[in-house]
């Protein structure tokens, strides 16, 4: 059971946790939640984070990733919820949940989804700090994290 949601609404963890637990006899559920950090920058603390996406293509990319994980780890459930639009420090940006019979599959699939989402789904972050907006640069470490799932 795949669930993909890209929305400006606040991510409701209790709804997502209930959904990933419900309706199947999984023994193991792994989740990852990404939050907006109030990192201290040269310009000051991050005040807002804005997420732009490519409607249609983003959902398709997330569906493809969830489908790949579901097949590779025999998941009984895979959820990806990603917020878009304007956010503040502490807000949830992304929630990934995986359900499987055993913990290794759930944990690996969860790490796979968040690593690959960072490189394979069309989202762009713009931070504001000290009143100045700037587009966040992609990181080589994210490319390497995504790459390790391609060897196997």
């Amino acid at each position, binding site marked *: 059971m795949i669930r993909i949601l890209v929305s400006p609404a606040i991510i409701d963890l209790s709804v997502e946790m209930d959904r990933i637990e419900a309706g199947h006899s999984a023994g193991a559920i792994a989740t990852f939640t990404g939050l907006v950090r109030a990192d201290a920058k040269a310009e000051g603390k991050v005040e807002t984070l804005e997420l732009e996406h490519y409607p249609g293509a983003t959902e398709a990319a997330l569906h493809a990733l969830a489908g790949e994980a579901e097949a590779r780890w025999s998941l009984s459930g895979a959820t990806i919820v990603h917020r878009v639009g304007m956010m503040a420090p502490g807000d949830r940006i*992304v929630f990934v949940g995986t359900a499987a019979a055993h913990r290794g599959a759930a944990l690996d699939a969860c790490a796979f989804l968040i690593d690959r989402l960072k490189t394979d*789904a069309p989202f762009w972050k713009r931070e504001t700090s000290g009143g100045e907006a700037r587009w966040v640069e992609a990181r080589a470490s994210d490319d390497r994290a995504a790459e390790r799932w391609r060897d196997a």
Partner: protein
Amino acid sequence: MRVLYFAWVRERIGTSEEVVDPPAGVETVADLIGWLAGRSDGHGLALAAPDRLRAALDQAFVPLDTPLGDASEVAIFPPVTGG
């Protein structure tokens, strides 16, 4: 052909979308980027460094040397930074 721009590419060009009719000889995504760069100062600024750009054809990520084929939607954008 519909061309979509995102993030700072969109901001520099000043539009999120336009319909273009590239001439013969524009065969790959990289060719299209080179041709689009001449359309305005904003296009030139946005598209000057193709190594900083990524693209999708009909909503699927592709390398810049990919032939345009019969794609109806091309998107040009910086490396993605979601999650």
